[in-house]
């Protein structure tokens, strides 16, 4: 081949390589950026007076004196709204019943949207549901709810040939000429006085329990559940996997049985995770009854089965990569097989084994399907360590799915969903980082 052709080929190949890596980096950026940006909004956001009220009452956090001051100023700002509503009600009472009927439904809607926005109307009975006891705690949700209070949505079916059209109509139009008319512009103008938005740093999002199924509070039970499940899976899978790998590499006689075992392990690695989930339910819970209900124990066992093949294969690779010279040296000095494994082969293959462990740890932390039937519930308290033997737990991957699909107020808790995703990604990254550092340290020690 001519020199120019070879050079061209080399250049083309390195160009392709750079493109491939660039595409990968872009994809990573595209995935991670929204997770980080939106996820961080669970921690840093503009919180309203309602948020501080909720924190003070539910979590006993915050400065009561300062809060009372703020509460007084917002109450003053809100007073005209309530006053106008009251006056309008009096006005309505004085109306003829036919006229009153016209306004009644519309006013009911206004009343409701004001309650959602600002919280229960002073003087009324305290609602039962926690979410109804407070107004909007976050400024961005406040603006959405303000819009809903100012505009009503109606379907326009005037064109019979087309589909119905959603149109927004200012509510104020329904109340022209009444005492309620000035309330709408007042609301729009003074909303920030009524809510006092302030940049809030809520790091305890991670360590707080959730209140009223994630409407308020944090995600501690999920975080803890994920940690339990991951560590539990590791406790079962690491010893089993590493021992199996040592056996396959150092003790088992190469032959049909070992080849067959290897095929089995590879096959196991390819089984869909939902199948593991169903197996966990059928075997751990229904057959050998490790616990009476779903439990962290059953989930950990199921997850450990899922990651076992990865750990075995990567440990095997690592052990086989240990120079034969080390083994010969140890055996030549009169070390037995067991001793050779423990004193020479395992230490030398530790970095490789750790890599496998890290990969499978990330997998175990993020798997959803295996824990649906064996461990996960959508709402629960943080578990004590001994309760993991018998109790189910919420866990990040399952609750992300659950909150995004099955929660009754999916739209209201976007920040929680993204916060959970962010936390899960962060946990996995941190675990990886930790393991990478550990691996680097060990390799450095081995290299001298």
């Amino acid at each position, binding site marked *: 081949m001519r020199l120019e052709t070879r050079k061209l080929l080399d250049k083309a190949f390195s160009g392709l390589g750079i493109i491939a890596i660039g595409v990968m980096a872009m994809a990573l950026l595209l995935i991670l950026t929204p997770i980080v940006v939106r996820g961080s909004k669970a921690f840093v956001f503009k919180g309203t007076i309602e948020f501080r009220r909720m924190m003070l009452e539910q979590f006993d956090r915050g400065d009561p004196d300062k809060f009372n001051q703020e509460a007084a100023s917002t109450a003053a700002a809100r007073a005209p709204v309530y006053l106008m509503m009251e006056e309008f009600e009096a006005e309505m009472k004085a109306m003829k019943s036919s006229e009153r009927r016209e306004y009644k439904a519309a006013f009911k809607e206004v009343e409701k949207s004001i309650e959602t926005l600002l919280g229960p109307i002073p003087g009324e009975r305290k609602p039962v549901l926690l979410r109804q006891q407070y107004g909007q705690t976050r400024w961005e949700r406040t603006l959405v709810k303000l819009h809903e209070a100012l505009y009503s949505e109606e379907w326009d079916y005037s064109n019979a040939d087309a589909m119905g059209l959603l149109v927004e109509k200012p509510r104020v139009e329904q109340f022209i000429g009444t005492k309620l008319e000035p309330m709408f512009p007042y609301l729009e103008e003074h909303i920030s006085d009524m809510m006092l938005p302030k940049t809030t740093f809520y790091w305890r999002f991670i360590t707080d329990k959730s209140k009223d199924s994630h409407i308020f509070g944090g995600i501690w039970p999920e975080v803890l559940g994920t940690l339990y499940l991951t560590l539990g899976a590791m406790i079962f899978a690491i010893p089993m996997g590493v021992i199996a790998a040592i056996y396959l590499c150092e003790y088992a*006689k*190469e032959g049909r049985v070992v080849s067959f075992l290897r095929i089995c392990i590879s096959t196991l690695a390819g089984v869909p995770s939902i199948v593991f989930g169903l197996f966990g339910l059928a075997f751990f819970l229904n057959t050998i009854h490790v616990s009476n209900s779903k439990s962290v124990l059953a989930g950990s066992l199921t997850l450990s089965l899922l990651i076992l093949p990865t750990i075995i294969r990567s440990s095997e690779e690592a052990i086989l990569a240990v*120079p*034969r*010279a*080390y*083994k*010969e*040296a*140890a*055996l*030549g*000095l*009169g*070390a*037995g097989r067991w*001793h050779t494994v423990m*004193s*020479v082969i395992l*230490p*030398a293959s530790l970095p490789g084994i750790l890599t496998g462990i890290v990969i499978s740890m990330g997998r175990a932390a993020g798997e959803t399907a295996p824990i649906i039937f064996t461990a996960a519930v959508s709402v629960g308290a943080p578990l004590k360590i001994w309760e993991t033997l018998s109790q189910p737990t919420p866990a990040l991957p399952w609750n992300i799915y659950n909150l995004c699909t099955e929660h009754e107020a999916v739209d209201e808790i976007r920040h929680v969903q993204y916060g959970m995703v962010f936390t899960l990604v962060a946990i996995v990254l941190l675990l990886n980082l930790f393991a990478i550092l550990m691996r680097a340290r060990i390799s450095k*020690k*081995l*290299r*001298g």
Partner: protein
Amino acid sequence: MTEEITMKKIDTFAEHGDDGATNETHIEAKDFSLFYGDFEAVRKVSMEIPKQKVTAMIGPSGCGKSTLLRSINRMNDLIPSTSATGEMIFDGHNIYNKNIDVVTLRARVGMVFQKPNVFPKSIFDNVAYGPRLQGTKNKQELSEIVEQSLRNAAIWDEVKDRLTANALGMSGGQQQRLCIARALAIKPEILLMDEPTSALDPKATAKIEDLIGELRNNYTIIIVTHNMQQAARVSDLTAFMYEGVLVEFGKTKQLFTNPDNPQTENYITGRFG
């Protein structure tokens, strides 16, 4: 089921004579053959290796000299599908008897490999590996053994200040001498050396050869080498092997100056190999 034969030595270092002039046989091969699967790598070799002498094995690549050497401490067991016939007698036992405890055998027959194969541990831990295996836990005792072994391997002065440094940081020649020190630390009676200088430069080679000269008084040394000058320099006896067969075995001086066998002559004069 017969009882397991342990090769544990009764007496330790003191056993080695100081004059080094015995004519006792230390290892004896009787019609010994070793197979890799169907391939007979060593063919019915019979030889008596005397105690506290340096025996060199020479021959072209693939002649079975390394295989024969590795048969003496059963290192070939690592390779699947090897089998042996005939006898290799050490301390009154055929070491290929299936009841032999290989671990105790290897503690008496130390080995130094072609490439320095230090463990990725500290210099101290490398040398202490064998003694620790044999149950020496006392720190004081260990340090003494380590120092003595390093001195015997003529490397003490170079490493005494950095015993805790990783052994992989040393030069190739130093690593090989550390390997020798490590082998000496288990106080073997026989030291097998499988082309110990083939990966080293001439200067390091010279050091190792000097070392062999010093060690010959206390150990039975069997060395495989490609370098005929080396065999002539360091050994008392030389064995020439060709295609698995022991062609000639005798005093080094005689083998190199007046070989009995024309094949040997052809090889040492460089006509083939």
